[in-house]
């Protein structure tokens, strides 16, 4: 009896005391908001691309450079290296400190009909490759008397060690001449495109006396200039043409169908001449391509297309690098003088342009006083003012984006649940959004939100949205589906919208807002 009682008491104290888990576990039902966002006009169109009228009407402003002439489109300076080898004509004695070689070089830059009197180097270098066959050290000096930087002429001095018996020593180096102002009028000052320099050779004053035999190599040197690109050039820029093609890709390439009707549009094509020379520009073609539909529409605008436009020469506001006074020529396009509306309504994903610039059509009228800065030559700029006043029918926007990797270790506590997407639509557009999750091989794993449509906001008699229209979607999200969503690598977005009362044209106002909120109603496992 006593033992039984003891066992009973021990059992009371000890039984059931072993923990199953470190922490207690239970489930709770959570109902609450998770995420929210507001999409206004400023979210859909960056401020820099939009203009808002006093009444709130929004205009999309597309302002883009569509073409710039390349830096070397007018002329290009080729590399100029020349080799000089002198052999001893007889028995000659070279005393220490003796100048045995001094050779001026007048390089012709070979610029065709371009005649430059001066330039400022943007980048490039002089090069000297010398071999010393003499048994005494030799000093070579590279001078460009008419190339100055802060008033100091260019000069580099290099000493080559004495040649070993039966062999030679070598020096090969480049000297940066970026920033140097070069007078290209040659040693006489009357020439053009003439880059003169001298190389001198001298036996080292501390060296030995050299007795040369007939045929011994005295001078073995290659010198010149490589990769010269001017920052500024002056002179006569010659006659010639620059042909170019410009391409602009548009955000509409993500539009995958549907139609749009525009109310009005205005476009301004502006040509800029920053070259100190008269020019003409000819736009031979401007085409809009819609890759999705395969359609191409050419711009029809008699005042612009295949119409020669004269561009006056730019002027200098001061010595280089003072700002240039560029000249401009603008052509306005609208529905009265072009088919620009039809061109934009085709929802092009790219615009292509064929341009041709002719320089100095009247010849050297400036008397060698043309100029240019190579980083700013001819430009073409297209600015489109598109009032967001349109009618859209089943306009489909598609895109696929990668999803960030996510640490799912903390999500195991989420149980079955539903999520509710609440949309408060202030736009007079009917929206249909579908999110398609994809695996790493772009296979579809799930689809969210369909079949559901966000209803448009109601409108007043002036077709202006008043208030917001509420739509709720229920997304059933059991654990298995949630795991699929969390393991998705990509998400494809399909957003289709139509304006209310199509083809009624509606204006977008800056106070239109689409509010989205995601509410969770789910089980959470407390662990």
């Amino acid at each position, binding site marked *: 009896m006593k033992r039984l009682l003891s066992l009973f008491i021990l059992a009371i104290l000890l039984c059931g005391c072993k923990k199953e*888990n470190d922490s207690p576990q239970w489930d709770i039902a959570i109902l609450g908001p998770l995420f929210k966002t507001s999409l206004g006009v400023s*979210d859909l169109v960056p401020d820099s691309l939009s203009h808002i009228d006093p009444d709130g009407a929004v205009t999309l402003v597309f302002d883009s450079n569509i073409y710039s002439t390349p830096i070397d489109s007018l002329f290009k300076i080729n590399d100029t290296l020349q080799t000089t080898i002198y052999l001893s004509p007889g028995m000659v004695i070279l005393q220490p400190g003796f100048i045995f070689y001094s050779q001026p070089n007048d390089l012709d830059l070979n610029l065709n009909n371009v005649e430059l009197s001066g330039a400022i180097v943007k980048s490039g270098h002089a090069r000297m490759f010398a071999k010393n066959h003499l048994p005494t050290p030799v000093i070579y000096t590279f001078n460009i008397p008419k190339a100055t930087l802060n008033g100091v002429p260019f000069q580099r001095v290099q000493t080559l060690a004495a040649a070993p018996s039966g062999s030679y020593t070598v020096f090969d180096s480049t000297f940066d001449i970026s920033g140097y102002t070069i007078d290209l009028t040659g040693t006489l000052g009357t020439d053009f495109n003439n880059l003169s320099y001298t190389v001198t050779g001298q036996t080292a004053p501390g060296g030995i006396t050299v007795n040369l035999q007939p045929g011994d190599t005295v001078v073995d040197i290659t010198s010149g200039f490589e990769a010269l690109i001017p920052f500024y050039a002056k002179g006569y820029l010659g006659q010639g043409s620059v042909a170019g093609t410009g391409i602009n890709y548009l955000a509409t390439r993500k539009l995958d169908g549907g139609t749009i009707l525009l109310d009005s549009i205005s476009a301004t094509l502006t040509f800029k001449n920053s070259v100190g020379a008269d020019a003409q520009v000819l736009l031979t073609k401007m085409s809009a391509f819609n890759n999705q539909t395969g359609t191409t529409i050419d711009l029809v605008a008699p005042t612009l297309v295949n119409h020669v436009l004269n561009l006056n020469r730019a002027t200098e506001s001061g010595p280089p690098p003072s700002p240039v006074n560029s000249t401009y020529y603008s052509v306005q396009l609208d529905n009265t003088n072009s088919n620009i509306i039809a061109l934009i309504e085709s929802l092009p994903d790219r615009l292509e342009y064929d341009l041709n610039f002719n320089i100095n059509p009247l010849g050297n009228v400036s008397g060698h006083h043309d100029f240019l800065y190579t980083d700013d030559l001819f430009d073409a700029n297209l600015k489109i003012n598109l009032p967001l006043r349109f009618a859209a029918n089943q306009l489909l926007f598609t895109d696929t984006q990668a999803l960030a990797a*996510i640490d799912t270790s903390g999500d195991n506590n989420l149980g079955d649940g539903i999520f509710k997407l609440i949309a408060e639509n202030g736009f007079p557009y009917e929206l249909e959004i579908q999110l398609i999750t994809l695996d790493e091989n772009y296979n579809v794993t799930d689809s969210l939100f369909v079949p559901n449509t966000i209803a448009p906001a109601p409108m007043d008699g002036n077709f202006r949205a008043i208030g917001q229209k509420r739509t709720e979607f229920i997304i059933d999200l059991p654990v298995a589906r949630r795991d699929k969503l969390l393991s998705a690598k990509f998400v494809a977005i399909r957003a289709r919208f139509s304006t209310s009362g199509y083809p009624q044209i509606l204006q977008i106002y800056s106070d239109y807002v689409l509010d989205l909120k995601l509410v969770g109603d789910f089980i959470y496992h407390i662990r």
Partner: protein
Amino acid sequence: MSLRGQTDLETSSHFMKDSMHSVLFNVSGNYFFGSDALTNEFASHYYLGKFIDEDLKDNVTKNLSSMNHFGGQALWDLSLTFHPDTGNNKVEAYIAYRSRVHSSSRFSKDFFEIFFRGNKMFAGETADLSDFSFQQFTYKQFVFGIGNEFSISGNGKLYVGVDLAINRGVSFLDVKTSDATLYTAADGEFIFADLHASIATDDSSGQHPSKLDGSGYSGDLYIEYETESSMLSFSVENYGSIVWNKWSTTVNLDSSFSFEGIEVRDLFDLEDSVKIRGANLDSMFYQNYVHDRKEGRVTTMLPMKISGFYTLYFNNRIVSATIGMDVLLNTNASNRYFAGLTYKINRSNQLGVNLAAGGYTTFHMGMGITHWFPWNVKLEVGSNYLYPMITYKSGKSQGAYLSLSKSF
């Protein structure tokens, strides 16, 4: 059987009244859990880390009133009582080491439902979380005491004892709310919280070199007046505090806020917005709403008991009957009233039963047995909560005690 074993802070008799012995060595331990709402089954599942299903919650919900309580304690104690003056058996000294864990709470019905079922059931309603309190202390005590026996009249003896305990705090958590409500919109679109609360806790990183996070002092007072036929006892136990070190944290919440979801600023930047890495409500809440966070010393009063009881002895002390009451202060408890009866079966065994109500729980009944082994070894074992423990699913308290002593 001791009647000091349930909401007790002291398990063994404090005085060594047997004049034949000069040294008493005792080791004892007890635990209890009591509530006026939480069932034993629920508490056991919680403590043992088992899954708490809806049936378990329902059984608690049935018991919930507007304000509810629970409390619990685990204690073990090692003590030595002896007469420091071998020529005077009336003076005794007491040395003990105690390890204690105590937790208690006061909570509203809505608080329980929110905590264990979530806020969905309050859709369109306001949950009242006011007047919530939860505190938990883990600490150790080194106790030094002295007592004396006074002869008052013919056969009456007065025992007076005092202890001083040096307390070493291990951990604490003290959460209190005054006015606190949580409104959940009917469709879940927003949650509005009006929170006025304070949270104090020790330094969880253990920056103090000793790894002890606090220190303090407390005292006990025991007075017993005993005659041949009766005994009147009064005690004040564990009156004192712990000062937690300067790395303790106090957070005060006095704010009202509406949570409408994490704002996604750039919906089209899917790399960042569709899946939010590492976002959690804890950090959201902390960063946005908790501003008054202070680090510094915190003083907490310890759970303290005042008790008194009266015992009548019958039949040459073979039978005794006791009535009494005690109150636990600083720890969310109410007054407890108890009565007990002991019967000495023979030289070696004594059986006791007790009835009680109050403290943290409702009516409870227990039983204990004392067995004297040879060589002056005594074993006390039992539970004052046998009745609620037997009714495991609906019972709301449990506990057990064990004491082994040896006198010389």
